[in-house]
């Protein structure tokens, strides 16, 4: 049983870039794929959260801030919550979700309740919670950089299959949040395209006037999905102190929130494509280093630029009239809905 349930550990879950595993599992592709999945996981979580928010028609530029608040909360949880390791870890994850949700609440109230400009509100939140803001303040006042985080996400070895060629390290040796993100992709796909609530959500994002006329509570959906988006962003933020860099530093998330924003577009607001995009971005983050470690000379800046260039290309393609009707953004994204006074 020992290999089965390594939920929390002190060893961490990061893949080893220089070499990992035996034989074929240490070849370049597998290593890159493994690190893509690893570094892409927070992007998947935050991206899925933003997808929910945008599907309801709300643009949330405060993603980075919410991730940071999630990271702070998770760090606090892991450092301070007593009891068995797994309990502290779960507490940290819950704290992260609550933190993200609370911040999203502020954004939701401002843009839905007060019809504040969505872009400005989101940016203000990122600055408020950002690397020079509340997250840093709280980290300071809770003394979160006093030491490495004790309870971190460990790697499972599911059913002992971790050593299978190729699929072993990729599918069977991942951590809790990565598996959770996969479940979430499937669950959200089902939610969006096979349930009534999901249909209603899509209607709210495409045409709030229609949804309202059909008796769908537009505001409630927007509040709900914005807050849920924040919770997921917080969860994504938690991945950083709990899996990537176990010691708190200001601005820990390093701008990943902005990437998650681009990801949603790249993924055409669909969960399965967001997954693919997240891993592409995740790969490019470590690709440069991995290649260099293997002696391959490619400009790391060029590699790092590729996902952003690709996103622009995708965005241009999605913006043509032909595409907009078939795969484009929710039609009402970014515009506040104001039913004429009743």
């Amino acid at each position, binding site marked *: 049983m020992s290999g089965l349930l390594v939920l929390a550990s002190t060893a961490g879950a990061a893949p080893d870039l220089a070499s990992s595993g035996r034989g074929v599992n240490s070849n370049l592709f597998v290593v890159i794929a493994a690190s893509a999945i690893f570094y892409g996981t927070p992007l998947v979580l935050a991206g899925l959260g933003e997808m929910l928010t945008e599907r309801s028609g709300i643009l949330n530029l405060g993603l980075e801030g919410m991730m940071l608040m999630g990271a702070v909360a998770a760090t606090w949880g892991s450092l301070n919550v007593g009891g068995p390791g797994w309990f502290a870890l779960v507490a940290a994850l819950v704290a992260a979700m609550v933190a993200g949700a609370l911040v999203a609440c502020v954004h939701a109230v401002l843009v839905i309740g007060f019809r504040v400009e969505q872009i400005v509100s989101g940016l203000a939140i990122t600055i408020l919670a950002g690397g020079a803001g509340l997250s840093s303040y709280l980290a300071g006042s809770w003394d979160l950089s006093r030491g490495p985080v004790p309870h971190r996400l460990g790697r499972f070895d599911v059913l002992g299959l971790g050593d299978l060629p190729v699929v072993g390290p990729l599918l069977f040796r991942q951590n809790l949040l990565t598996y959770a993100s996969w479940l979430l992709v499937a669950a959200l796909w089902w939610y969006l395209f096979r349930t009534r609530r999901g249909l209603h959500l899509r209607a709210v994002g495409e045409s709030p006037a229609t949804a309202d006329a059909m008796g*769908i*509570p537009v505001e409630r959906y927007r509040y709900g999905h914005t807050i849920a988006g924040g919770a997921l962003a917080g969860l994504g933020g938690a991945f950083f102190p709990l899996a990537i860099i176990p010691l708190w530093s200001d601005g820990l998330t390093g701008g990943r929130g902005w990437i998650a924003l681009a990801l949603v577009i790249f993924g055409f607001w669909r969960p399965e494509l967001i997954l693919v995009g997240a891993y592409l971005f995740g790969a490019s983050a470590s690709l440069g280093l991995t290649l260099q470690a293997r002696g391959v000379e490619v400009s790391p800046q060029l590699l790092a630029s590729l996902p952003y260039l690709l996103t622009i290309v995708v965005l241009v393609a999605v913006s043509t009239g032909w595409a907009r009707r078939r795969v484009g953004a929710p039609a009402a994204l970014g515009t506040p809905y104001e039913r004429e*006074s009743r």
Partner: protein
Amino acid sequence: MAPALAARGVTKRFPGGVVANEAVDLDVAPGEVHALLGENGAGKSTLSNVLTGLYRPDEGHVEIDGNPVAFRSPRDAIEAGIGMVHQHFRLVETFTVAENVALGRRGPLARRASAALVRDLGDRYGLPVDPSARIWQLSVGEQQRVEILKALSRDARVLILDEPTAVLTPHEAEALFAVLRRMTGEGRSVVFISHKLDEVRAVADRVTVLRDGRAEGTRLLADATSRELARLMVGRDVVLSADRMPRRRPPGDEVVLRVHGVEAAGDRGEPALRGIDLTVHAGEVLGICGVAGNGQRELAEVIAGGRHATAGTVEIAGTPMGRPDPRRAHRAGLGIIPEDRLHTGLAPSLPVEDNLALLAHRHPPLAAGPFVRRRRLRERARALIDEFDIRTPGPTTPTRLLSGGNVQKVLLARELSARPRVLLAASPTRGLDVGAIETVRDLIVSAADDGVGVLLLSEDLDEILSLADRVAVIYEGRILSELDRADADVEDLGLLMGGDLVAGRSAS
């Protein structure tokens, strides 16, 4: 027996002092088609929004089967059995028909069942539609069918239709009336909102007339004359046939607008203009009548340079227009009074003086190099306000605060002061009160007398007949029959507007 649906003393006010409905009473019996008749702005849409839970009445209440109800949201109304088909459809364009029908209901989503329901209801009531088609792929008539199916799928006992035939061909309108009769045969009721007297006659059992927010009376259609209904609608005796307005000068020979073989696609890619030919001479008014949705909007946009024509040519005062370019059109001598005053014609939040200067700000005397001379701009605005008698608290008032008639005067002032050779006026008096209508018509006629060629697009036959020198009918993207006013017969024109080509034959 208690009425299926009733309004008791319903009053609804809006910020700014507008009273859209005042103490309105209405009762709709089960199994009847009850028409709500009134001009634009009479309060019909507001009342229907109250009846369907979108608005809450400030005074009075709604009754269902004799029991007072207070809707807190549209959902309550839908569950009480009130369905509505709006003028602007409440459909999600990117969804399929089945998905739209499934919206708003409870319980797990059953996609196959929804599709089956659509097919089933479609067969039962004569509303065939493909459940898996996406809304943007459907024609307007088919989309309306989806709206009705939506209401029927919720077992609506009262169906309210807001100006349903505005976007239908006469054939489709007949089909719609048949559907309505099938529904009332089952004991359901229909509220038919319209401003067209003859349609109301064709389909309704009783009619309630609204004017200026008040219910002026309810009549059995079998007993009421058109004259009586028209009087209730307008408040005074209305001359039902129009005499031509007097003109100072006959039209000239010079052609100021020539449209030849123009074809264009609509917003959905469907063919909107199928080869339009027309000419307008200096000092002449060419009136084009037609039911909305037959290509008028697209024609206006092509001439104004806002829409691409896939074939054909447009010449303004002899200058051929190439790619769509509103600036070139203006420079060649075109003036436009668009149908959508407050959004295509003007910037609503800007002050009146800015909107008056929208065309002229680029040239001297209002411009000096890259700068705009604000003092000159204001002086000019004041002069135009005087000349056109625009009622506004001042030149700096935001334009959207003006009444409809004065908004139209701002547009006319702006376009006419640029001394156009051609004036394109689309539904210029729609929604205006009687005094404003007269003023606008006077301005158009005096422009023609000054040598401007006027292309008048209107739904209102009376307006066309009172202003035009020559008359034509637009139907499904083509011009049917172009003839002199003297040869035009109201009934023939009406038939042509409905696509009856037999009449056209005899007229030309």
